[in-house]
């Protein structure tokens, strides 16, 4: 190379500037790295981000009904909500019911039925009979077809649907609703089910978390400290139920705990309770808590165990050597060291418990049902997926709040699964 080129950029042997070449190599590395994480990214996108996004959008989406009755809602907005709407509203409603093709009306009536029970059959009946009406005035003729058209309650119920987005489902999820002027009011008392269920869900989940901790902590301690030949056996005892079908375990509890079940029979035989005062341990909230505690116990024991395994026994020995009482040594030395395990186990159990649904369905009976049971009901039976999405979103939001609180108080970096 001649001396003139030294002042120019440094070149690689094939004459490309070194900077460019380096950049290229780095880019290839970056692409390679990106390609390596791509499956994971796609997995997260498909299984988390899109479903959650879809859920959030469904929970406020009210566009469909607005594509079926756009003109009706336009004139409806001018109505003063006193008495019955004007002839014009009746007329556009009539025309749009006639114009709607295929399944549009059926779907729309399902939506309308969420805000006032009865819309579904009213629309169905009307759709058939309206064909005979050839000209106005429509108001009286529609009322003649079904007198519900003359009932302002039905008309007022439309008020919450006139916008393409709605918070109605969220209100519904916390026992509130819109009135015809889109003011927020409480649900009638005999339909206020969700707040009650939310509280129950949190109460049950919290209790289950506490009970699993109380039961799981000593087990995990034994697992971590016993000699291998005993701890292996104990580990199998923990894992065996973990591998057993959820349904089998739930049904086994039914047999044990019901009023004429094994437990009550033994208690009566032992003379501890009278035959007519058998304990109600099944088909109620108590049953739900007992069974869920047993089912979720491994989720507490395993993280606890894996953390306790890393706590050196010499810490406790040192504390005892230095004169601490066993209780004091445990409280000041062992317990703080096991907090990451408690956090991980607690959060894991709580998160699983809060969305539980099969066990409460089977053993919950009259008052042991949780929010998951209502989500399942609306998902399958009423097809009110908007409400499902709202309930699910609230659940998600509450979880995030709990997580945030937890982070504030204990710190996320303290979670350890092993």
């Amino acid at each position: 190379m001649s001396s003139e080129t030294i002042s120019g950029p440094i070149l690689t042997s094939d004459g490309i500037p070194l900077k460019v070449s380096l950049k290229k190599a780095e880019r290839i590395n970056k692409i390679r790295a990106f390609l390596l994480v791509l499956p994971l990214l796609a997995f997260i996108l498909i299984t988390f981000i899109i479903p959650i996004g879809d859920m959030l959008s469904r929970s406020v989406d009210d566009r469909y009904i607005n594509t079926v009755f756009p003109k009706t809602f336009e004139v409806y907005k001018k109505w003063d909500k006193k008495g019955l709407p004007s002839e014009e509203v009746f007329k556009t409603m009539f025309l749009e019911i006639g114009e709607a093709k295929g399944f549009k009306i059926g779907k729309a009536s399902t939506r309308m039925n969420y805000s006032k029970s009865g819309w579904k059959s009213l629309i169905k009946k009307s759709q058939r009979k309206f064909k005979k009406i050839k000209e106005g005035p429509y108001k009286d003729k529609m009322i003649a077809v079904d007198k519900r058209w003359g009932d302002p309650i039905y008309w007022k119920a439309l008020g919450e649907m006139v916008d393409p987005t709605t918070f109605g489902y969220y209100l519904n999820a916390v026992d509130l609703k819109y009135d015809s002027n889109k003011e927020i009011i409480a649900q009638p008392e005999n339909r206020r089910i969700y707040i009650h269920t939310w509280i129950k869900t949190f109460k049950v989940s919290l209790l289950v978390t506490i009970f699993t901790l109380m039961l799981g902590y000593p087990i995990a301690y034994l697992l971590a400290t016993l000699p291998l030949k005993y701890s292996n056996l104990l580990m199998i005892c923990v894992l065996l139920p973990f591998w057993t079908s959820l349904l089998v375990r739930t049904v086994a509890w039914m047999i044990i705990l019901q009023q004429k079940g094994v437990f009550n029979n033994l208690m009566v035989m032992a003379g501890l309770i009278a035959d007519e005062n058998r304990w109600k341990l099944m088909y109620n909230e108590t049953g739900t808590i007992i069974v869920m505690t047993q089912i979720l116990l491994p989720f507490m024991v395993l993280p606890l165990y894996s953390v306790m395994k890393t706590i050196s026994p010499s810490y406790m020995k040192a504390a005892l050597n230095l004169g601490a009482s066993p209780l004091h040594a445990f409280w000041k030395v062992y317990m703080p060291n096991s907090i990451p395990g408690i956090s991980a186990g607690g959060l894991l159990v709580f998160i699983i418990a809060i969305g539980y649904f099969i066990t409460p369905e089977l053993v919950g009976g009259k008052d042991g049902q949780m929010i998951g049971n209502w989500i399942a009901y609306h998902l399958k039976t009423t097809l009110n997926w908007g409400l499902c999405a709202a309930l699910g979103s609230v659940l998600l939001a509450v979880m995030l709040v709990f997580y945030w609180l937890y982070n504030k108080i204990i710190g996320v970096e303290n979670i350890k699964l092993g």
Partner: protein
Amino acid sequence: MRKTIKAAFLGLISMAFVGSATADITFVSWGGAYTASQQKAYIDTWSKGSGVTVENYNGGLGEIKAQVEANNVTWDVVDVLPDQAITGCDEGLFLKVDQSHFIDDMVVKPVSECISPQIFWSYVAFYDPAAFPGKKPKTIKDFFDVKKFPGKRGIHTWANALIEMALVADGVKPKNVYKEMSSEGGIDRAFAKLDTIKDHVVFWSAGSKPLELVSSGEVVMSLAYNGRIGAAILQDGKKFNYIWDGQVLEQEYLVVIKGTKNEAEAREFVKHASTAESLALQAKYIPYGPMRSSSIDIIKKGEPYFNTGVDVLPHMPNTPKRLRRSVIADPFWWADNGAEVSERFGVWKGN
């Protein structure tokens, strides 16, 4: 783009629901002895029966809606309840079918243009006679009378049929029940009647549970699906007594899912499954009542008709005599008011 993503996502969900598709048609029903009877009566007797794959589900339209919305339909024929039949047909989840070959032979009018008839089944009260050595309960009123017949009652965890039964027990004539339910205060009246047994009930949600509850003495009487009681009596030799009074008749239909890739075969299958002969044959294996009048005639002539060589008609819910004291569940009423009453029932249970 959004649509595609949504479709892809829903497709994924529906895949998760059903596993994989098959070449011929997939028939989805409730499982257990019921599906077994359908297998014998409809699938085994169909010339193309070997191509039918049977799957189980737990009712509801959730999975079907997901499949249709994602345009990835893997269920071809599904066994549904009337309110699903109505909602699904309204929402365009099912195909309309040719009803000309059975329409004049039905015990009750079909609820939608999408259905092919199947069976009647019934919520009915029953007890173990050993629990009542003296006087035995005979009416639904007795079921709701804890003074005359003390002891616990088993009832299901949802509101359907309970409202109707409570009203019949309160003195409403079976044929007027839905009029009462639609009238002001009708539902209040039903709940007031339910209040009278509230402290004496044990809830069940799985169909096999009430039989266990009664057998173990956990309850003295219970509501149950009549087919389950019948099977326990006919096949397992249990000694149960029905209370044929105020029972609530439900219907079961076959529908073809919109967007099925095997439409012609699916249509052919539901047609085959809803002939009078097929419906009658099913009663050989499970004591549910066929929906076609002529099927009942076939059974009547064939008694003792059940596969174990005993009479099956005494276990059927829709004999003319029993229909007089039956409420035929009105799916239209429930399609309208189901959500509202269910929420109220939830409040009632929880408090």
